[in-house]
């Protein structure tokens, strides 16, 4: 049994005038200790997908169809109390901006131990002990001092380490990290990624890592999902997605990487922009931007086809260059 299996997930936003579909037919699995990457441009639905797992989609979003099977139970059917026993206990989250994630008026210690107290019957002293151990685990120097400090006394990189420590403190089997380094300095980004990698490896924690950056995906993950306009367009082993992708959108993302550009030239961005939820084109949502577009792409939503380890939704699916 997989650790997490998302089946045909559909998420909608009940706007005043209309229902907007933010995710359609999203299915994927995470095995125990596996690291899965989700990429896509801004607005692809990566965050909605991540937050819907813990039923934390911001209003007016709601899960309108599908199942989220985690450790054998369907999370979409849980009561609020049952759900809060999963949150922060079996599945933890790491948010994008560590400057905003920590509560400014509570100490680091309070914010760490409350996660323990919420899920375990643990004494104050033991909780403090665990918190300090976990701070050391994420390589925070003088952990015992940090315990009594407030977030504003720490730098951005340190705060993200604290957030990661909070996520880890209950020893969950799965962590969801939504662009955990986007808000940080480039030099610190690599440190934080290395740290997450090390922690996931040593503790056999599963990871869903959301990012814009295919480079990060290739270093960090074993499997990868490419999303576009609320749909998974391609999914497979990371090495296959990086080396032998079939979807023209994935090719476009690869070409946009700075490493693929001759120095001095502009980046090869995909022309056009991701559509808003209210104006997703008929047929394949990517068709107005697609270099391979054909008539069928404008009328019919492509089904998934399996090619090797990869699952792809494209009428024109083909390896690079053919």
């Amino acid at each position, binding site marked *: 049994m997989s650790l997490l299996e998302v089946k045909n997930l559909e998420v909608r936003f009940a706007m005043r005038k209309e229902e907007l579909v933010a995710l359609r037919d999203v299915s994927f699995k995470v095995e125990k200790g596996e690291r899965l990457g989700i990429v896509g441009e801004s607005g692809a639905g990566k965050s909605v997908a991540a937050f819907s797992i*813990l039923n*934390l989609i*911001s209003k007016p979003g709601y899960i309108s169809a599908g199942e989220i099977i985690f450790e054998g139970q369907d999370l979409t059917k849980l009561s*609020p109390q049952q759900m*809060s*026993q*999963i*949150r*922060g*206990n079996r599945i*933890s*989250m790491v*948010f994008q*901006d560590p400057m*905003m*994630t*920590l*509560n*400014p*008026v*509570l*100490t680091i210690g309070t914010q760490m131990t*409350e*996660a323990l107290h*919420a*899920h375990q019957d643990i004494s104050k002293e033991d909780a403090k002990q665990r918190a300090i151990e976990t701070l050391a685990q994420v390589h925070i*120097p003088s952990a015992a001092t940090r315990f009594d*400090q*407030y977030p*504003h*006394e*720490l*730098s*951005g*990189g*340190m705060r993200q380490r604290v*957030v990661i420590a*909070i996520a880890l403190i209950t020893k969950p089997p799965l962590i969801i990290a939504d662009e955990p380094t986007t808000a940080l*300095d480039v030099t*610190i980004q690599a*440190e934080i990624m290395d740290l997450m990698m090390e922690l996931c490896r040593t503790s056999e924690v599963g990871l869903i890592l959301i990012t814009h950056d295919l480079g990060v995906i290739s270093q960090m993950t074993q499997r990868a999902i490419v999303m576009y306009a609320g749909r998974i367009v391609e999914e497979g082993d990371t090495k296959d997605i990086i080396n032998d992708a079939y979807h023209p959108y994935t090719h476009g993302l690869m070409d946009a990487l700075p490493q693929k550009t001759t120095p001095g030239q502009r980046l090869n961005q995909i022309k056009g922009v991701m559509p808003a939820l209210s104006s997703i084109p008929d047929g394949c949502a990517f068709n107005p931007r697609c270099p391979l577009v054909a008539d069928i792409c404008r009328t019919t939503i492509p089904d998934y086809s399996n090619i090797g380890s990869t699952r792809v939704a494209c009428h024109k699916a083909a390896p690079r260059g053919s």
Partner: protein
Amino acid sequence: MLAFFVRRLVQAALVMLIISVIAFSIQDNLGDPLREMVGQSVSEAERQALREEMGLNDPFLIQYWRFLKKAVQGDLGTSYFFKRPAVDVILDKLPATLELVFGASLIIILFSVPIGVFAAIYPKHWFSKLAMGVSIVGISIPVFLTAILSIYIFSVELNWLPSFGRGETVEIFGGWTTGFLTRDGLVHLILPCIALSSIMLPLFIRLIRAEMLEVLESEYVKFAWAKGLSPNRVWFLHALKNTLLPVITVGGVQIGTLIAYTILTETVFQWPGMGFLFLEAVNRVDTPLIIAYLIVVGLIFVITNTVVDLIYGLVNPMVKLARPQGGDD
């Protein structure tokens, strides 16, 4: 923290200095103090002599300096009407006014926090909608109208509550008389306190609701949910603490406004406080009393603001910025 405290005290002293200049300069514009003191029967030459003797012909700054020296010793002149030190006259009435303000503040705090928080947590609940609707109406009704209406309903029609005076008071210490310790005193406090709180209460309900709504949308509250904390902990620890920070600041300023409104409330309810006394003093052109009132009220205002700032500093960890920011990466 000490630096913060000292800075705040210096600020408070500066504000008091400015208030004293303003209060003192009013003196010249309120008519001739001599006429108030000696009447019409004295000859012009005698007047001049008296003026010279009292230093009324000295330059402004010298007069002000004299005034200030006496003022810091607690001497703000003698009331023309009461023939007693103006400060003593004011201080006699201070308990009545402060108890009124205290009662109104208590009402504001006890009602605005729960209602504002509830309306933010359950924005679609009928009670929230009702509270928001009523508060809009409440803001736009003037205090004296609320006062007169409440007198009409609860005193005249229903005859439940008294509408006049402080009722029975007892002296507790240093001449402080309180109405909070007798049943009669408490009953007399109800209507004036409600009337005084009537504009500020809806304002605070709306302020707290708006702040709380914003905080509930914040990333750190979202993160608190993601940790699996109980709703009570998220709402009443994570969200409420951040909601109340800006409210405390506004609250400090509004207590000053509340004291200004006591003039109206005390007049309507014949409440024997400083505000009532002040209106009488204005009618009698009792200049020392007017000045003493302004300075005492200014002092109360400055003290409450300083105390509120200090509380804010205690609640908000970010104020202790004396320590250098961490930065170990």
